[in-house]
């Protein structure tokens, strides 16, 4: 592999391929219609001990014709309510909760296209150059027809001040597009619900990131 003193060689990242229509077999087999693993990864991030405000995130992923994707798989990644990621690279001086991983995997309903996550509202986390980022949840979306996973972020409608200062939202030149990343808060039967619809294409196309 080492070819010469002045030659910089690197391996190339393995190419992406679509997850296909049957992604559930591998990543959510119960939804595919069978039970195989003893322990399954789920869309519930919380345990009874998890600190912070309990929230439900729900929405649909919508294609260029306005039709919800009913075969989409979504993973989310977030900090705990104090704003710390459960990962050794996060060395912020904030409390870590060992049993809150901050990761969840969900898929849309085969009939309605609705996805949901049960989690807590994340805290603020340090961004680049010490600039604090507004609370957000990182999304990764794969499905049939998506050649490479789509990355986006969900922000919170009740964090107007923090959102206005958020370095990532402010990177988006078109103010009208920033709104596509902000989930609307509501309360249903005493539960806090954030609605986050993701539009892959068309009017109000969601902002996706090259991370």
């Amino acid at each position, binding site marked *: 592999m080492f070819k010469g003193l002045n030659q910089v060689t690197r391996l190339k990242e393995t190419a992406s391929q679509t997850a296909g229509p049957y992604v559930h077999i591998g990543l959510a087999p119960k939804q595919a219609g069978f039970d195989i693993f003893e322990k399954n990864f789920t869309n519930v991030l919380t345990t009874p001990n998890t600190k912070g405000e309990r929230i439900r995130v729900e929405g649909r992923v919508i294609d260029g014709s306005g039709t919800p994707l009913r075969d989409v798989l979504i993973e989310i990644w977030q900090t705990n309510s104090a704003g710390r990621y*459960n*990962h050794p690279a996060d060395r*912020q001086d904030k409390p870590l909760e060992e049993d809150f991983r901050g990761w969840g995997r969900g898929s849309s309903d085969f009939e309605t296209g609705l996805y949901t996550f049960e989690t807590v509202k994340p805290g603020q986390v340090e961004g680049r150059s010490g600039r604090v980022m507004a609370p957000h949840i990182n999304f990764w979306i794969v*499905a049939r027809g998506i050649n490479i996973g789509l990355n986006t972020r969900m922000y919170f409608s009740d964090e107007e001040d923090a959102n206005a200062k958020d370095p990532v939202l402010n990177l988006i030149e078109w103010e009208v597009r920033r709104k596509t990343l902000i989930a609307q808060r509501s309360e249903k039967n005493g539960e806090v619900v954030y609605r986050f619809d993701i539009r892959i294409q068309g009017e109000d196309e969601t902002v996706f990131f090259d991370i």
Partner: protein
Amino acid sequence: MSNAIQQFGEFLQRDKTVHPPAYTPNYKTSVLRSPKNALISLQNSLSEITGPIFRPDELGPLDNDLILNYAKEGLPIGERIVVHGYVVDEFGQPVRNALVEVWQANAGGRYRHKKDQYIVPIDPNFGGCGRMLTDDNGYYYYRTIKPGPYPWRNQVNDWRPAHIHYAISGSGWAQRLITQMYFEADPMIADCPIVKSINNEEAVRGLIATLDRGAFIQLDSLAYRFDIVLRGARATLFENKIQGGK
């Protein structure tokens, strides 16, 4: 521990020439499922360099044995194979503790999925999914049945080559990758619109597992070698300092 910290630097920018573009009309489903706007480029922050960490006790002892993990009344039908390889980053460093998840059709080309209606029967003894963590060398392996090719609704006469789907979680969110592994010498690879969504011959070759005669299990299984490269993490720490470090 110093090694462990080093691998958590910022990730190299993704080289888009090795990946399929979002919009590939010969793979028809991509037409309405591809963003039309340019992606917004983001420098890595903690949100991108961190990611979920998985533990061995979250997996079962047979999770990487697709021959046995759904065997109900007998063994699944088909060619028995071992698939193995290394998960490394662009610098050739092993990616330890990476979660590798695989799924596939059975030997006849049918998935155990409520939406798959292909005429070939379901194999009662084959689930078609497995998962494992890489070891300290980035090594993984599993046993399975070689999947069959199958027709699909794209152009009327399109067939998928035999393939196994992979989902890999490395050490950070920005490394997340889903791909498919194909088999050496399969004539269907060249015709597949999903394979052809990649406009880079070298990148396609990287998705083709090689028959590995040295790893055959005698009188039992063929073996294929498939190495995976995830994005490289720079050795320098995020903005050259430890987060929160004094």
